[in-house]
């Protein structure tokens, strides 16, 4: 009689998830807890839960049981590769599902990898979430029929039960914040038109207007499902806004490989979000029948100009089965008849009837009632500067590299022991920020993708943009070739005065350069660049006064338009963490600082706050003093015990022979196989383990095919040569800092 749900929650972010308030519980090993939960009815063993480099559950911070839900929390600074998650389910348990759960809007989008639910239902005890049902129905669906239902009916009707959002007044108790004066008109326009093109200038809040309009339609029961199709880089911003303005809506992001997407399409939710490429793949290139047959009450195409030409993408969009169809675009389309016809062939397929080449007059008269376009310059109430933060998710390679760099960085910091200083932390922050900007190996950059997408729209409207970064060499120079179509110029410190003047003049007075990439240090002060009315802050300096100064290049006397400022921030990254701390502190910084490097962060965050970014305390204490006092044989026994705690069977070898292997550790894997580790222990407090030890271990692994991988563990450090040697080999190095952490986690300290 067990219905257990396993959720892996990433940090306090999910504190608000409905019915799952985190509860402080004593730290308990995951396996113990699962066993406790399933006592007498089911048993379950979790194998290889986290990535090999983090070995088992070492990073789970707390585990708690809430009703029938199990909650695991781990620190935000940790990264878990849940691709490696595998579960060993005893054959006696049936109806077991490992699900990715659709997200409540706005609760971070990479959650699909972070939040998992395991349902064990060995009997028919799944409770009906919605109803009290005094009369039973013979044809009532049995649990096995409902496997694909991840969101219960209550979740789906939740928006309908919310207090009504009024379309009239600007201010509404039930909205995240006040609407801008022009937005209610846009919302009414969308609510009243099944086919609509909202073509406001960028910065006027097309996304917010669309979300509130959807919210109203959901509340009125006029729509129950919808799909948003947008460029890849805009998925994150959409989710963020949905979370703010319509958190009652459940959103599923369709992405990933062809094996994971079908279940995402099949998941019941209020909204699906997909990018154009994914939609084209699943509807045209490798059609997924269930997706194609899905009926949506509403389809929103953001950047709808993507379908202005006949293409696979436009065909994919046209095959969407949706009654209401809205398009969003800030790109002026009025003068391009064929583009307009193609777009409205999607929005309202019968608009032009049999007329193949309608005249411009006819087009104009037909589309006018279905189009709303406001220019920022026409709106009298527009403020001079509109600030906005855009949260983006790292691309897959970028994320892997970032996570690895963070993991390694944290271990390195821990290895520094009591010698750690704030400078070490700041160095790691800079390293991570650069990856947030651009991952050099794969050349992936979500910020660049986003920039390219929005610059299209901005420059089409005759606007120009400034892009600021504090890393001219590592970021600006490298993204510059990718922006060639906008004829970018780079303004940085190494330029001569004459060159600087020439670039500024060209940008200010010519039409050719649409974008000026500016190093913060050289471009932040003194210049007048009023030809630009869009400013992108590619990375952050943690000091609003400095940012204002940069924005001041465009927002100054002579500027005739509203200036739109966008800060690009990566979610689940050091950027977001710092931003969050600064926001929580609610401090104001009016002074300008001269130091524009990341070191300036010291003036904003305390030492404790800086250390806490990586889960460190100010003065790390060597909690495992016992290590220094151990005899070498005692150290081997300790390592053996550690691996036993991790779920292995261990054998500490005799003191001689066995190719220097000190401990063998074995366990069963989820696929029915067996994993054997050969562990070599080097008790070298204060000393360094070199390459020869690693070579010797590699030889032992190589000679014995039963050994899955090797582990070299030391109470000292590893030399660079040793680390280089094991790169790409099946050897894991555990040096003192990590060892101490593992011993603490497994309560062996």
């Amino acid at each position: 009689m067990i219905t257990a749900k396993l959720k892996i929650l990433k940090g306090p972010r999910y504190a608000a998830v409905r019915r799952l308030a985190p509860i402080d519980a004593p730290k308990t090993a995951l396996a113990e807890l699962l066993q406790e939960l399933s006592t007498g009815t089911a048993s379950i063993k979790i194998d290889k839960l986290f990535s090999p480099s983090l070995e088992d559950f070492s990073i789970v911070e707390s585990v708690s049981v809430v009703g029938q839900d199990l909650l695991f929390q781990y620190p935000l600074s940790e990264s878990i590769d849940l691709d490696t998650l595998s579960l060993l389910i005893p054959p006696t348990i049936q109806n077991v599902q490992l699900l990715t759960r659709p997200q409540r809007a706005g609760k971070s989008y990479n959650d699909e990898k972070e939040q998992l639910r395991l349902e064990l239902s060995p009997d028919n005890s799944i409770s009906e979430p919605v109803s009290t049902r005094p009369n039973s129905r013979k044809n009532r669906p049995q649990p096995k029929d409902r496997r694909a239902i991840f969101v219960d009916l209550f979740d789906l009707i939740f928006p309908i039960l919310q207090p009504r959002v009024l379309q009239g007044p600007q201010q509404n108790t039930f909205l995240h914040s006040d609407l801008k004066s022009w937005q209610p008109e846009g919302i009414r326009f969308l609510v009243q038109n099944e086919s609509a093109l909202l073509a406001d200038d960028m910065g006027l809040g097309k996304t917010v207007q669309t979300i509130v309009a959807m919210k109203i339609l959901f509340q009125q029961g006029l729509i129950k499902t919808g799909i948003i199709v947008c460029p890849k880089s805009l998925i994150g911003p959409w989710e963020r806004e949905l979370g703010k303005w319509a958190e009652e809506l459940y959103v599923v992001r369709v992405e990933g490989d062809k094996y994971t997407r079908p279940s995402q399409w099949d998941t019941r939710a209020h909204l699906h979000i997909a990018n154009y490429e994914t939609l084209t793949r699943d509807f045209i290139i490798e059609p997924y029948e269930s997706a194609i047959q899905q009926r949506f009450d509403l389809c929103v195409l953001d950047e709808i100009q993507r379908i202005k030409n006949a293409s696979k993408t436009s065909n994919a969009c046209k095959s969407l089965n949706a009654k209401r169809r809205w398009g969003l675009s800030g790109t002026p389309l009025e003068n391009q008849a064929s583009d307009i016809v193609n777009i409205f062939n999607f929005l309202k397929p019968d608009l032009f009837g049999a007329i193949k080449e309608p005249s411009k007059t006819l087009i104009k008269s037909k589309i006018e009632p279905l189009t709303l376009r406001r220019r920022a310059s026409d709106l009298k109430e527009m403020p001079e500067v509109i600030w906005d933060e855009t949260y983006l998710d790292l691309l897959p390679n970028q994320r892997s590299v970032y996570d690895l760099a963070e993991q390694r960085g944290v271990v390195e910091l821990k290895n520094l022991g009591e010698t750690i200083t704030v400078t070490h932390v700041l160095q790691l922050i800079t390293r991570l920020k650069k990856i947030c900007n651009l991952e050099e190996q794969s050349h992936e950059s979500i910020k660049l993708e986003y920039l390219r997408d929005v610059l299209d729209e901005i420059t089409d409207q005759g606007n120009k943009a400034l892009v600021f970064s504090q890393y001219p060499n590592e970021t600006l120079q490298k993204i510059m070739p990718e922006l060639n179509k906008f004829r970018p110029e780079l303004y940085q410190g190494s330029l001569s005065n004459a060159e600087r003047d020439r670039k500024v003049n060209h940008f200010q007075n010519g039409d050719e350069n649409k974008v000026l990439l500016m190093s913060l240090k050289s471009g932040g002060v003194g210049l007048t660049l009023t030809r630009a009315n869009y400013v992108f802050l590619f990375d952050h300096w943690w000091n609003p006064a400095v940012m204002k100064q940069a924005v001041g290049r465009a927002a100054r006397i002579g500027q005739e338009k509203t200036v739109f400022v966008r800060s690009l921030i990566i979610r689940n990254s050091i950027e977001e963490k710092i931003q969050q701390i600064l926001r929580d502190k609610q401090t104001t910084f009016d002074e300008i600082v001269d130091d524009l490097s990341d070191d300036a962060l010291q003036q904003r965050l305390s030492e404790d706050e800086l250390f806490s970014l990586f889960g460190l305390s100010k003065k790390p204490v060597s909690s495992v003093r016992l290590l220094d006092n151990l005899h070498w044989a005692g150290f081997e026994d300790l390592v053996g015990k550690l691996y036993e705690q991790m779920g292995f069977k261990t054998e500490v070898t005799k003191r001689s022979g066995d190719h220097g292997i000190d401990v063998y550790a074995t366990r069963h894997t989820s696929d029915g196989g067996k994993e054997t580790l050969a562990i070599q222990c080097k008790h070298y407090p204060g000393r360094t383990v070199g390459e020869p030890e690693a070579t010797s271990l590699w030889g032992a692994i190589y000679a014995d095919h039963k050994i899955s991988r090797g582990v070299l563990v030391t109470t000292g450090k590893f030399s660079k040569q040793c680390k280089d040697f094991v790169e790409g080999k099946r050897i894991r190095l555990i040096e003192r800092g990590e060892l101490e952490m593992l011993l603490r986690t497994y309560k062996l300290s």
Partner: protein
Amino acid sequence: MNINAAFLTLETTQSGGYVGAILVTDQIGIPQEFRCTHRVVATKVQQQLYGGTLKPHIGIELCGLPLLKEIKSKPNLIILKDSFLLALREKHEIPTIFLSRAEGIIETSDTKSSSEKLEGDFEPIIVKTHQGCNSDLNDAMSHLRSLRLDPLEPFVRIQTALQALAEQEVAKYG
């Protein structure tokens, strides 16, 4: 004091039959809990046997009481828009009232129960109690005045939600 109001109703379905539903909200109308019953369809024999008492029987015994028993967010006040459901008050201790628009016709001809007019940012409403529980009126009026919504509006939400659920069920299970 935090007020939770429960809006309880028995709705007639398009395909015949009844569905009971309860929505518990806080003072500003944010939903705390929602439950509904399966569609209850009386057989012809049952219709004959129960006659005029069929609807009250379904509303009170088959839907109202089980719903009140099931909800976890216990309300301070139960609000009804069907007068026959006032009989529920005989079976629990929570103040229970029946509401109708002031210009509407109150279904009951009963004059023993207390009633009062409620005015706010909505069309006036007549509040009526169970005839045996006139003392509910003072508490109820005080609770109603602290609500920041039109107390008949949540019933619209319930109807829309039930309609959506019915469509889901039809779509999914035929």
